């Protein structure tokens, strides 16, 4: 086997892929949240719709978005592969009594990253089908700003978020994303070997803050929409 393939299929190499794609997705979440906060500007969706047009037409962003889709799939597929390999390594016979301890604070989440990730993936499929797919397929109403036709992505957002079912779906999904981030953020640094007496406490703090604030920011948008439209 070629040395590079061997590296990427080794136990550490596989985790490295999880770590790097995970970190990319972590950064993406921040960009996505900043963009989405424009939904809260009281201008009937003009700022958000213009932003959505920019995000779907700018060539640099288009190129990055293909990377994003690839990384989401790579992160998910590699995650499932790891789950299967780890299960195989554990062997068929489990313990009759399960009581192992852990020194880390996120052990409960760490053990369930595969399940949490799968929930997040299902959320992503529904979420992208609801907005991204409509935007790409162009079956959206059109708004005209300064004589330019722009897809009105704001309309389906407003419609979805006046439905209590969707609001709950988004808020609960954010809880799962938060848990996934709570472990994933700090774990990705440990996997890269970036463990340091001086910096690790800060990375852990930042990871916990990120895992609370980013999903909270996302969850607030449907809640605010719902309350405003009541």
């Amino acid at each position, binding site marked *: 086997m070629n*040395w590079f393939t*061997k*590296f990427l299929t*080794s*136990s*550490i*190499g*596989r*985790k*490295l892929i999880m770590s790097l794609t995970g970190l990319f997705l972590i950064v993406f979440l921040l960009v996505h949240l900043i963009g989405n906060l424009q939904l809260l500007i009281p201008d009937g969706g003009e700022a958000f719709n213009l932003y959505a047009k920019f995000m779907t037409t700018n060539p640099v962003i288009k190129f990055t978005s293909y990377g994003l889709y690839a990384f989401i799939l790579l992160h998910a597929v590699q995650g499932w592969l*790891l789950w299967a*390999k*780890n299960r*195989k*390594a*554990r*062997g068929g*016979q*489990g*313990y*009759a*009594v*399960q*009581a*192992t*301890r*852990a*020194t*880390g604070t996120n*052990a409960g989440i*760490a*053990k369930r*990253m595969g399940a949490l990730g799968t929930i997040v993936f299902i959320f992503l499929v529904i979420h992208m089908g609801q907005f991204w797919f409509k935007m790409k397929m162009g079956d959206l109403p059109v708004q005209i700003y300064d004589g330019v036709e722009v897809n009105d992505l704001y309309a389906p957002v407003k419609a979805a978020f006046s439905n209590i079912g969707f609001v709950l779906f988004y808020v609960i999904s954010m809880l799962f994303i938060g848990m996934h981030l709570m*472990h994933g953020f*700090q*774990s990705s640094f*440990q*996997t*890269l*070997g*970036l*463990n340091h007496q001086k910096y690790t406490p800060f990375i852990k703090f930042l990871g916990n803050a990120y895992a609370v604030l980013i999903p909270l920011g996302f969850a607030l948008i449907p809640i605010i929409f719902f309350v405003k439209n009541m």
Partner: protein
Amino acid sequence: MLKEKLKKMSHGNMNLTLKVWRQKSGQHKGNFETHKVQASEHMSFLEMLDVLNEKLISERKTPVAFEHDCREGICGSCSMVINGQPHGPQRGTTTCQLHMRQFNDGDVIAIEPFRAAAFPVIKDLVVDRSAFDRIIQSGGYISVNTGQAVDGNSIPIEKDLSGQAFDAATCIGCGACVAACPNASAMLFTSAKVSHLNLLPQGKVEAAQRVLSMVNQMDEEGFGMCSNITACEAECPKEISVDNIARMNREYISATLGSNKTA
């Protein structure tokens, strides 16, 4: 004499119910067997098992097979899972150093072998841990010609560094990390062995090749991957730190990308 001694000891103050895993061999199916045992709180866990075996032998039954050697916490033989915890409830302690005062009269204690695909059961509580030996053989050594011992102070080593290397070197290779890990990963063991040598000047010479070969062998043996759960650190009788895993990851990545060595 031993029999008399054990008989005396068995007049203990604790009545225990043991649920012990019995399995004739790797080919046979195993199951739990329930036994009553009287023990003294001053006994070690292994001494309590000795009492059980004496009883079984006197009843002309097959004694429970379990591994033990030094009985002073440094050989790493006494591997078993007690009430769901490798080496039992007391932190930083091997089974042989675990005393019955950690339990109460009337307790039910479940005793199982270490579970991992790479640690197949040989008999009862004994598992085959030769996968660890093969990991050591792949790089857990330094190549020096034998001869007169050099003066210990001829190579200056920073105290902090030698301390870290020594902490890693306290790993007794018992396999509790693998038994505790939901993924049956051997990263804590392998990283302790890599760290112990790679941190020191004598080990630096072969550092890149060592980490590549040892990780490669670890993967070949079919151990799982690290999810940074830290169960290994909590259950390790020598309290080896997961910082070693980060160090191994770092050294593996740099040895792969930054040296001309391959596994």
